[in-house]
């Protein structure tokens, strides 16, 4: 398990070096997107329109932050990751169409995302779920916010981060998926060890 300090925009060759279990600290620009953000981005791209920010080489963060406005400037108060599984329906297409290099969230993603990571050169990394204040310490500035009509949690927050991490690589660009392996092990334990104890 290696440790990397990366800066956006991240190149494909930098991403292809990363392996499941590696730790990354990220600096540069990350953009938040949850269900509604992914959905709007894909429908805009389908109509041939462009997104408010070019995401190629950047990181998308599954997060709906707590924010406050201080002296007219937005401030991130707490910003941990949300459950990534909800974005599984969108992520493969999102990676393909935006050129985003890193997806950050929690709880794992599925095989479609893993295939897209392999094909287009991207990774999925996790940050500790719920550790929102810890995450916000790495967030230096809100560069901009778009789509506030979706509500604060679903808006697209463009944030400058410094040494955001530790982020653990859970899907790498070879398509290796940490949580898929965990799934196999959990199911094995359930069937072989737990069921017999309760009479199944």
């Amino acid at each position, binding site marked *: 398990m290696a440790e990397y300090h990366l800066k956006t925009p991240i190149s494909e060759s930098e991403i292809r070096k990363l392996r499941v279990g590696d730790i990354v600290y990220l600096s540069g620009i990350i953009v938040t997107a949850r269900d509604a953000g992914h959905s709007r981005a894909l429908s805009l791209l389908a109509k041939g329109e462009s997104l408010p920010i070019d995401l190629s080489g950047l990181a998308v963060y599954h997060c709906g932050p*707590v924010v406050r406005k201080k002296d007219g400037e937005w401030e991130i108060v707490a910003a*941990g990751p949300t459950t990534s*599984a909800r974005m599984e329906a969108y992520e493969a297409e999102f990676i393909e169409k935006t050129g985003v290099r890193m997806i950050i969230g929690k709880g794992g993603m599925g095989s479609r995302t893993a295939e897209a990571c392999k094909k287009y050169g991207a990774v999925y990394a996790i940050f500790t*779920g719920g550790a929102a204040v810890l995450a916000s310490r790495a967030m230096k500035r809100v560069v901009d916010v778009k789509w506030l009509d979706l509500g604060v*949690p679903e808006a697209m927050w463009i944030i400058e981060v410094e040494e955001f991490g530790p982020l653990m690589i859970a899907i790498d660009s070879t398509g290796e998926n940490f949580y898929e392996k965990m*799934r196999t092990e959990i199911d094995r334990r359930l069937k072989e060890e737990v069921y017999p104890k309760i009479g199944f």
Partner: protein
Amino acid sequence: MTSDLAGIIERASIMLLKAATTILPPDVKEALIKAKEAEDNPLAKAQLEAILKNCEIAEKEGKPICQDTGLIIFYVKVGENFPIRGKLRDILKSATIKATSEVPLRPNAVDVLTKKNSGDNTGRYIPWIEWEILPDSDILEITAFPKGGGSEAPCAAKVFSPAQGLKYVKKFVVDAVAQAAAKPCPPVLIGLGIGGTIDIAMKLAKKALLRPIGVRSEVPELAKLEEELLELVNSLGIGPHGVGGKTTALTVNVDCAHRHPATFAAGLAFNCWAARRSKMKVYPNGEVEFITHKILNELWR
């Protein structure tokens, strides 16, 4: 006097919401520390260390532990002789709006039909209030219970046949925990309600989450079931945030109601490790006693 009392309850409720979202209850914190000490999987230990460090900073800086500050729910027990009972709903709604901007909390109340976020954590039936009347009492007891969304997704309820009974309820629990894996932010707290109708079972499951970790059911058979289920779910090896390890759940709390002869209902509720709850008592003379977060008693007034 009564309008003063309304003001006191509102002010104390704002503090209750702030404490709930920024400071973990002592039992949860202690359970997380124990889990960290017992852990020998380095990935799991790293997750627990990050969780504990996060909580330390949140408490010190008065910031929300988790950005998902939950859908706002209050459990209210009101003494039959407590004054201004009829104003409590309005008071709690107003406290919710004020806490949202003061703490601040994330606005989490979304209109089901228009998808519009109300922006202040209130809306149709929200904040949700669970009422209970205390006979022969003049005390008001309020528990703020902001409920995060990630651990709500795997909650489930099912009606089994009496022939399937407890055996199938156990399977229902282990299957749901295995299926949820990392998604509800383990180590989780699990509430299980059995009996009644399906909605009663679910309500009991949710209420069981209010019981502090380490306090077992007063019914010996249920206490035994709690221990058995805790051991079973922890043997799945999901671990903190699903990276593997010893602690998948910090507790399993079970409650039951008498059932219909033809049904065997079960409700299963999850709470993420950020198990936010804060309780206070209000006396009719306006005196306030904070129960979960005793530190507030010094800050009050």
